[in-house]
């Protein structure tokens, strides 16, 4: 029960920060709009809404990394976490308390982006429901990265690392351009990382290509488990020291 109180507090902390709202919920919509307008003036199809929306939703998840990382980093820096460590909360309470509130935020991000995308021509059907679930699973990867960053770094450092992370997410995920355009070692490196698999899984779900969905989602989930595992191990170590 205590973990739910911590989760509730953490969610309020994030949702009451206007900058979180503007960037986390507003920026993906602005990007959807901008690229859709660009597409209208392009002679060829590069930013079709069916391809663009899944990518931008996944890109928007990088803000979940920022939110969770900043919150944990700030709590460590302000001694709030020390206050919590002195309380009877156990290790599992922290894991649930910092992880759980991110899921409704991710869901909200997905829904807002889907509504915006539907106004821009994305058809909402049964596949969209599957895509929503797939996207929620993908969001765990980004939350895990945030928890790892917040465990290792201060909130100020997390801000700097996020700048790097958001660029990695953008350029190594194939959101903005097809990786086939570059190919070679660049494409190979991208496919070693989870971001492009996340985008591929989201696109496959929207398109109803469930055969190709499994492989990508498995890679993303495996990465999530590993990153979350590292975050929990480091957090427990910090707790006991």
């Amino acid at each position, binding site marked *: 029960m205590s973990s739910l109180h911590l989760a509730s507090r953490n969610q309020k902390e994030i949702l009451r920060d206007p900058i979180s709202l503007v960037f986390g919920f507003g920026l993906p919509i602005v990007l959807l709009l901008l690229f859709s307008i660009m597409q209208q003036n392009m002679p060829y199809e590069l930013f079709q809404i069916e391809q663009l929306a899944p990518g931008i939703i996944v890109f928007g998840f990088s803000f979940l990394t920022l939110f969770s990382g900043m919150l944990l980093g700030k709590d460590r820096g302000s001694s*709030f976490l020390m206050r919590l460590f*002195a309380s009877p909360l156990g290790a599992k309470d922290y894991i649930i308390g910092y992880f759980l509130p991110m899921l409704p935020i991710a869901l909200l991000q997905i829904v807002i982006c889907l509504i915006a995308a539907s106004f821009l021509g994305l058809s909402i059907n049964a596949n969209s429901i599957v895509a929503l679930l797939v996207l929620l699973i993908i969001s765990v990867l980004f939350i895990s990265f945030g928890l790892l960053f917040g465990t290792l770094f201060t909130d100020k450092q997390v801000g700097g690392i996020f700048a790097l992370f958001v660029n990695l997410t953008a350029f190594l995920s194939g959101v903005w351009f097809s990786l086939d355009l570059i190919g070679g070692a660049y494409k190979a490196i991208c496919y070693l990382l989870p971001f492009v698999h996340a985008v591929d899984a989201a696109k496959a779900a929207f398109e109803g290509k469930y055969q190709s969905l499994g492989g990508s989602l498995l890679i993303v989930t495996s990465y999530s488990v590993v990153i979350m595992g590292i975050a929990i191990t480091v957090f427990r170590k910090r707790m006991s020291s």
Partner: protein
Amino acid sequence: MIEIKELGKSFGERVAVDCLSLKIREGEFFALLGSNGAGKTTTIKMMSGLQTPTSGDIKISGESIFSNLQEAKQMMNLSPQETAVAPNLSVKENLEFTAKIYGRDKKEAASRAIEMMEKFGLTDRSKTKAKTLSGGLQRRLSIAMAMITKPRIVFLDEPTLGLDVRARRDLWNILLGLKGKMTIILTTHYLEDVETLADRVGIMHNGKLCALGTTNELKEEYQKHSLEEVFLYVTEDLEVFV
């Protein structure tokens, strides 16, 4: 009764707390003094279960706190050196949140929050977000969060740090009102705080407890007119001879 027995904490080669033995009575207001790096905060962290000692033990009413840490944590609370409040939560929410993570139900948490806000003069700021409070009020809230669980033992780590004269005096009055109701262990650099508030004082230096007693006992023992003189004498002596 808190009994600290031959407590030690080392970080690699550096000894932060060295064979500290001390007894603190139930309901006592005990002040732990020392220069920066003397080992006060490390001692507080071990006493509140935040750090495991390298050697020795801490017992409350004869029971080692490390044998059942979760249970021990239920009867303790602390206000850390920095004002540790949830910035985007209101005063009331901060208080209720603390009560709830210590297992109090919604109704009890709400009634205790009201009680604490009255005691700490925060009632008119009930709905104000913690981050918009002044430094003094944030400090009051931080201490109220430590008190809301009605702990048997509360640790106040430099509670008056960075407060202006008025805020400091206000906090003194609040703390004087709590005297005897719970065991309060205070660390501070302000000797005036200690003379006003504490029943007994312990002076730490280089991880060791160098002096222990009431302010009057210490002045008498070291033939000094003020606690400041005692403090300087005790710590200076050790710096020369250790």
